[in-house]
């Protein structure tokens, strides 16, 4: 019993939790762009995404010519 108690009282190893914003930045994600997006409405985010997608599609087409 005592041995069991001793085992249970072992200090738990602390999990290494990195800050999600720091983790994103470390990966190379532009966190300032995420912060800008956080201040936008869903409509604005979708509109901006559409512009980016249309530009990417145009560039893709031009590359194929």
């Amino acid at each position, binding site marked *: 019993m005592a041995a069991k108690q001793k085992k249970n009282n072992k200090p738990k190893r602390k999990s290494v939790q990195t*800050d*999600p*914003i720091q*983790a*994103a930045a470390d*990966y190379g*994600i*532009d*966190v300032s*762009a*995420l*912060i800008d*997006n*956080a201040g*936008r409405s*869903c*409509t604005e*985010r*979708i*509109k901006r*995404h*559409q512009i*980016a*997608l*249309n530009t*990417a*599609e145009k560039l893709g087409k031009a590359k194929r010519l």
Partner: protein
Amino acid sequence: MNSDFSNLLERLVKAGVDFVIVGGFAGVVHGCTYVTQDVDICCDFSADNLLALQKAISDLNPVHRMTPGRKKLQLTEQTCGQFKNLYLDTKIGRLDCLSFIDGLGDYDQVKRESRLVEVEDIKICVLNLEALIKAKRAMNRPRDREAVLQLEAIKKLKNSQ
């Protein structure tokens, strides 16, 4: 082809299609900065719902983009039951319709973990942030792992606002 995802979604909403935006585009709605080339929706795969979906996009030349020869979308009440997913291409963008989401479950479960957002005066169901992170973790492709990093950062930003 020039994509117009807003138009695509507006058509589905106006036709009364029961669906939830999932996948990369749900991430965009939540604030992710990547560009996704298709809209993924999880929807009720009942014949009524799929036929409503087909009607909503019928003038957009919808085709099954994964089939040889890109077969035209021609669902009937009888054939609707054959599908678990539909990978479509239309004149205004790709639309993937899924009946099940890894890490979450079927449409009913996905719907429970969604919320309504207003986009240009139209209310659309979008998977909530927590559930989207769960689904992306379950998929675990390189692009999903990057999406999780963005979504976790967005969650932190939201909580600190």
